[in-house]
């Protein structure tokens, strides 16, 4: 090896850096389900007790509904969701082939609503959008989360990791300090999870409602007294992509229940 090549290699190593010391080894990864109490687990396992299943039912209705005269339903283009949407939620966010933009699942649904159905897209966090998300997530239950890196989203993974490690807010804390460095510990009686996004959208007992991953992010941001990013912001999507890379291979348990 020439000296220049050696130097380039050394520089490359420096730039790539070692894996962060707080990275959770694959064998140690635990989902929110694994870490919650037996009662909440039982509620999630029983589709009749899981309140998020109401949203799935509502979403199925919306999937089949004609949104207005002469306008196509989701079903009329995509057919039977159990076949056409199987495993789709597990590989979102994804890059849209035609435009190159990266969409999360709610963003993809909104795009189909505005561009293919020709209707006003449902707002983020609205009951209608959450219902469609829950219905689609249901078609990926048990599917392993796909690696965003493997589908060319490396840049978004890096941006998301930088956000994950950035201290925010008046309390000056990063996501990593809680979810990578102190998971399993008690934050005033609440067990800190590893923040794997396997179950969204999900029913959270504290919300007494079904909510999105971005709503969960917003809760953690306001908890450290930081200004959350606006709904649908690119930063949230980058964070989701990083968390999905970190959780790649873990089984989806959406629509889940969490305390």
């Amino acid at each position: 090896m020439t000296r220049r090549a050696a130097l380039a290699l050394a520089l490359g190593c420096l730039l790539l850096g070692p894996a962060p010391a707080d990275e959770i080894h694959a064998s140690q990864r635990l989902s929110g389900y694994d870490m919650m109490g037996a009662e909440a687990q039982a509620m999630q396992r029983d589709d009749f007790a899981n309140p998020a299943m109401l949203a799935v039912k509502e979403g199925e209705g919306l999937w089949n509904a004609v949104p207005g005269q002469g306008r196509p339903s989701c079903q009329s283009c995509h057919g039977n969701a159990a076949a056409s949407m199987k495993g789709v939620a597990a590989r979102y966010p994804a890059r849209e082939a035609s435009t190159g933009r990266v969409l999360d699942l709610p963003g993809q649904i909104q795009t189909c609503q505005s561009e293919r159905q020709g209707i006003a897209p449902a707002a983020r966090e609205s009951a209608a959008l959450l219902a469609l998300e829950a219905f689609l997530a249901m078609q990926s239950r048990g599917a392993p989360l796909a690696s965003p890196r493997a589908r060319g989203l490396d840049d978004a993974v890096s941006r998301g990791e930088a956000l994950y490690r950035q201290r925010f807010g008046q309390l000056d804390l990063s996501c990593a300090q809680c979810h990578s460095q102190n998971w399993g510990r008690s934050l005033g009686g609440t067990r800190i999870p590893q923040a794997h996004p396997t179950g969204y959208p999900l029913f959270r007992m504290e919300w007494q409602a079904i909510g999105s991953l971005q709503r969960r992010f917003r809760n953690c941001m306001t908890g450290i007294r930081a200004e959350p990013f606006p709904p649908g912001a690119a930063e949230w999507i980058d964070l989701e992509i990083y968390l999905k890379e970190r959780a790649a291979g873990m089984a989806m348990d959406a629509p889940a229940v969490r305390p």
Partner: protein
Amino acid sequence: MTGRTGHAGNGRPRGLAIAAFLAVLAMPARAQPVPEAAPLPVSRPADPENGRRIVMDRRKGLCLLCHSGPFPEMRFQGDLAPSLAGAGSRWTPAQLRARLIDSRLFNGETIMPPYFRAEGQTRMARAFAGRTILTAEEIEDVTAFLATLRE
């Protein structure tokens, strides 16, 4: 600290705090001085009883989210940090005050929030912009309370 650092409240720039922090880091391990802070200018004498209330208040002091301590009436306490029991024997009031003002002076990687620093954080929530977690009076109250926790 003791007139070396700048924090919200006394108007001196944060750069000095960082310089002081770096100076501490640069010291040889044996001679490392423990950061200290002189009493903050306050409008009334310190009230340790109020300090105790602040420590137990999950929305104000937030201390028991991370710490445990001699608070039998508090059912849920944290285990992210050492117990506060005996803090007054381990640290002088000047050291306790410095830790509250900005715990990063002790440990750059700490998770303990900076209670008397209003600048340098990223994306401060609008409702808290420009404000410290505790006021100077409250820092003095908590310091006085911690000093009573002796073993």
